[in-house]
């Protein structure tokens, strides 16, 4: 179960508070997974008491369709705090030894990016391969191919436009594994080096070479799956 309480002393108009929480939650707590299990108790509350606001300062509110001014600044701070908290949850995943950041880019809308990222994050075989430091890209493709986004007219996943790489969290050069559906000659030594670290990124482009549409990116965080997860949960009795 995920519980969260965020408190601020800013004065915020009620509807705006709900909107800001919903937006910040989408990119933080709703973009993580430890074991793919949704709890019966997940709750995150945001309280804004205005205690630091001078009397004459108006409440932060969303005045236009696009967020601007104070509302945009407050969303930035709130998103940062919630993403930091969400990351701490994944770092502490039961039995976790690695923080895995999955970045899925596509021109076919955020929903299919998120569905693919979430599907990779829930793959027991991807998570166990990463625990074993195995650059098993076949399992990543298999997970992507199984996404359950209702098939629209436009294919969500096109094998010859799908590119997958591993990247170290230190920002150095990614290691291509599959480019537009064709496997690369993987540099095993480099792969092992990347997978030795406690932070790994999986980069997926679902529309590599597709020129139509704007590219969106979903960032989803998960952890690897170890023997310890089973030990902890084999005896957490109801």
């Amino acid at each position, binding site marked *: *179960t*995920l*519980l*969260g*309480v965020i*408190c*601020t*002393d*800013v004065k915020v*108009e*009620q509807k705006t508070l*709900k909107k*800001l*929480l*919903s937006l910040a939650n989408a990119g933080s*707590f*709703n973009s*993580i997974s*430890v*074991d793919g*299990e*949704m*709890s*019966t*108790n*997940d*709750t*995150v*509350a*945001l*309280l*804004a*008491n*205005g*205690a*630091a*606001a*001078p009397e004459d*300062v108006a409440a932060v509110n969303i005045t236009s369709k696009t967020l601007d*001014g*104070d509302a945009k*600044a*407050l969303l930035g*701070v*709130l998103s940062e*705090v*919630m993403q*930091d908290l969400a990351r*701490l*949850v*994944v770092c*502490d*995943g*039961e039995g976790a030894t690695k923080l895995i950041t999955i970045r899925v880019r596509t021109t076919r809308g955020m929903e299919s990016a998120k569905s693919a990222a*979430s599907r990779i*994050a829930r793959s027991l075989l991807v998570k166990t391969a990463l625990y074993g430091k195995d650059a098993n890209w076949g399992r990543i493709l298999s997970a992507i191919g199984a996404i359950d986004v209702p098939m629209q007219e436009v294919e969500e996943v096109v094998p010859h436009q799908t590119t997958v790489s591993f990247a170290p969290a230190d920002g150095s050069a990614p290691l291509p594994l599959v480019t537009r559906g064709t496997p690369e000659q993987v540099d095993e030594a480099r792969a092992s080096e990347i997978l030795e670290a406690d932070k790994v990124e999986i980069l997926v482009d679902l529309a590599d070479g597709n020129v139509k549409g704007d590219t969106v990116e979903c960032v989803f965080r998960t952890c690897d799956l170890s023997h310890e997860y089973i030990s*902890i949960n084999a005896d*957490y*009795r*109801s």
Partner: protein
Amino acid sequence: QRSIPVAKQKYVPSSGSYPKGFIVGAAHAGVKPSNTEYDDVALIITRKPCHTAAVFTTNRFKAAPVTYSMKFLKNNESHIRGVVINSGCANAVTGDVGMKHAKEMAAEASKCFGDELPSTLVMSTGVIGQTLPIEKIVPAIAEAARALGSDHQHWMKTAQAICTTDTFPKLVSRSFRLPSDPETEYRIAGVTKGAGMIHPNMA
């Protein structure tokens, strides 16, 4: 307090900047029989009731505190005093008695602040399918209400008290300014918990 594995200590802050008007605290109830020493009840309170928003699980078997808080928030979203939280038992799949216990937690928390009517949200986490030891939790809420404070130690104790299989308390805080009012320093702080049964899809 629980010991924190060396590898995880880098995630635990040693100080923070905490928002004005919020007081927090924790107490030991012994919700799980095996817990004989650690705090497992927490209160996060604002001196003046305030605007509040929340997102909840979309799991169809919503726990009693979720159902209670969803309903309560719908009718009181601009006038919330805070949140009362227990760890060790989820109060989930517990039928009518579970809802009764969630209400008792809210009533006890509100009573501590002289609020005639309930004014807090309720959260629970832990084992599913067991009823809350409410007779232990109610006095612990009163004890937590006597132990409230606004410094880093109080926020840290609160973050610790809501943990279940977590190996370290999760607490983040920031100070910031807003473009329209650069003279004023504002602050934000958040606590969270979670280590298993984690794939939220809250709305």
